[in-house]
């Protein structure tokens, strides 16, 4: 058995009456890469935000349970949040450089924790930029604004900035979803390198990324913990049907359809209105299947539904004339 780094016990989070995480209990192993997988909206980011208490920034949220890191409960009032956050680096979805120079970005963390000596800062900056493979690319322009870097470089800078406060754990929330394939690969390689010294938790809805990186996998679905275990077991031999379906990418067609509406024979603005009405009668998270035969509707209905904030789970042709659109109700 490996050591546990983060122990989550009976974690519940509710946003304004929306139960986003339901009684989650799971242990995250030390010095391994743990991937949290699941479709968007299932509570992955919420789980990360609980670990570093950024959840405090949200209004109207209630949470309960325990998250134990190094014998300290993150939710305990007596716990020093600053200390916890220092221990948990964060790599966000969107590369977010601070509005200052490349050097200042990396030096920001050490500075706010009281490091003043220029020599020490210089050394930290160089070391962290080198770990993320950025040193050679930026060493001649350390004082130019970080926003001038390419998106991929910005994300590596963010990683370097996180490393500069010497965390034990790195939380990554879909860290490559805004990047091009080459930059994504760069980040993935770095995470693999960092794994021997850090505990890494990566949220991803890219199943292939999870397979490439993860030692341990946690599968969430609509706020529930479906399955967790060593990556090999979960990917090759999932215990749960829903995990198998998700991994095979067939999740959506196996979904329980809550309502089916036949819109054949309707033309465009109307089938959209009818679809909206049908969706209106469903409660949040329920799934609606539409059958349409207007070619325009095949693109316009899903587009409109996404614009309304719903999730389009699949669009496929079922016979010569008809298409099937599966939508999950969100807001």
């Amino acid at each position, binding site marked *: 058995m490996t050591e546990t780094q983060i122990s989550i016990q009976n974690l519940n989070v509710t946003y304004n009456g929306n139960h986003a995480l339901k009684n989650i209990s799971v242990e995250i192993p030390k010095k391994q890469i743990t991937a949290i997988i699941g479709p968007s909206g299932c509570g992955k980011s919420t789980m990360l935000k609980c670990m570093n208490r*950024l959840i405090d920034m949200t209004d109207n949220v209630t949470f309960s349970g325990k998250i134990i890191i190094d014998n300290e409960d993150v939710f305990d009032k007596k716990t020093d949040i600053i200390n916890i956050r220092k221990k948990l*680096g*964060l790599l966000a979805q969107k590369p*977010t450089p*601070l*509005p*200052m120079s490349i050097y200042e970005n990396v030096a920001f963390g050490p500075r706010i924790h009281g490091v003043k000596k220029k020599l020490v800062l210089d050394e930290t900056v160089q070391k962290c930029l080198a770990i993320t493979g950025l040193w050679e690319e930026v060493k001649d322009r350390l004082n130019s604004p970080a926003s001038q870097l390419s998106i991929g470089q910005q994300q590596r800078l*963010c990683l370097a900035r996180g490393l500069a406060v010497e965390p034990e754990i790195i939380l990554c929330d879909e860290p490559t979803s805004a990047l091009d394939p080459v930059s994504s690969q760069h980040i993935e390689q770095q995470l693999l390198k960092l794994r021997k010294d850090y505990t890494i938790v990566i949220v991803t809805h890219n199943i292939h990324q999870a397979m490439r990186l993860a030692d341990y996998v946690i599968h969430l679905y609509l706020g529930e913990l479906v399955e967790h275990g060593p990556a090999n077991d979960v990917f090759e031999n999932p215990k749960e049907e829903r995990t198998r379906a998700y991994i095979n990418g067939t999740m959506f067609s196996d979904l329980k359809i809550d309502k089916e509406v036949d819109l054949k024979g309707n033309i465009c603005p109307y089938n959209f209105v009818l679809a909206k009405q049908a969706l209106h009668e469903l409660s949040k998270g329920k799934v609606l299947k539409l059958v349409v035969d207007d070619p325009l509707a095949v693109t316009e209905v899903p587009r409109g539904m996404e614009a309304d904030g719903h999730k389009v789970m699949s669009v496929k042709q079922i016979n010569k004339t008809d298409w099937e659109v599966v939508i999950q109700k969100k807001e």
Partner: protein
Amino acid sequence: MNTRRLKDVLSSRLMLAATVFAFLLLFFMAAGLFFRASPILITVPISDLLFSIEWSPFSGKFGFYPFIMGTLWVTVLATVIAIPVSLLSSIYLSEYASNGLREMVMPLVDLLAGIPSVVYGLFGVLAVVPFINDTLAPAMGAETIGGYSILAGGIVLSIMVFPIIISVTGEVMRRVSGELREVSLSLGATKWQTIKHVVLRKARPGIIAAIVLGFSRAFGETMAVLMVVGNVAKVPSSIFDPAYPLPALIANTYGEMMSIDLYDSAILLAALILLLVVLICNVIARIILVRIERGII
């Protein structure tokens, strides 16, 4: 169908006409002032007008220097007083205050902007001037003319500038994204460190715009200043001295000594200078704010 289209065409034309009219008005005002000011620009060298300290219209001496300095002293003092107070209160309102408190206070701040300036002037005469005369000046060992001074003007003006700086600064600070704050907090920064090093840094262009807007408001303000600043045409050397800012000069003397040669022209030149300075400040500030809104800065 046709009347609907007609209405559409008409209303858009009408709006265009109104916009063009507003621009033309500004243009004609500036052009008119320039035209009427040109006699003095032709006869007296511009450097004399701007830098000569001699103001004796009867002998044809039109040195605006004392008035320009008076304006600058009062405006700069007002801005210097207003900056810390309004920055701190807008930081409090946008970062620390609860939503309820903010929603209650912001309309009051806007209300402050709507109070007629003569009321501020009265407040200055009744409260600020006596306070300076009886308490502040004696305590500092300074002489004033009954308390009427640059300091009185600066204090009154700064109160008039608060609402502009508070509301514009608050707006740009609330525009700083949550992600950026999260980055700083996740590195272990405290809330105050995050505000000081990240939020204020990101909002800096907007804060500068807010200050420029406040400055131009103070620069052009007439009534309240005129009532408390003493109106003595001398280059001031301390904040306890009286001063005679340009707007006060215009308001006090235009239409009175028009028989004097070039007097009319000189006063209109002062008006032109005021118009241009305020216009330029406003344009700069608006450009910065629009760029922030579009996400360029």
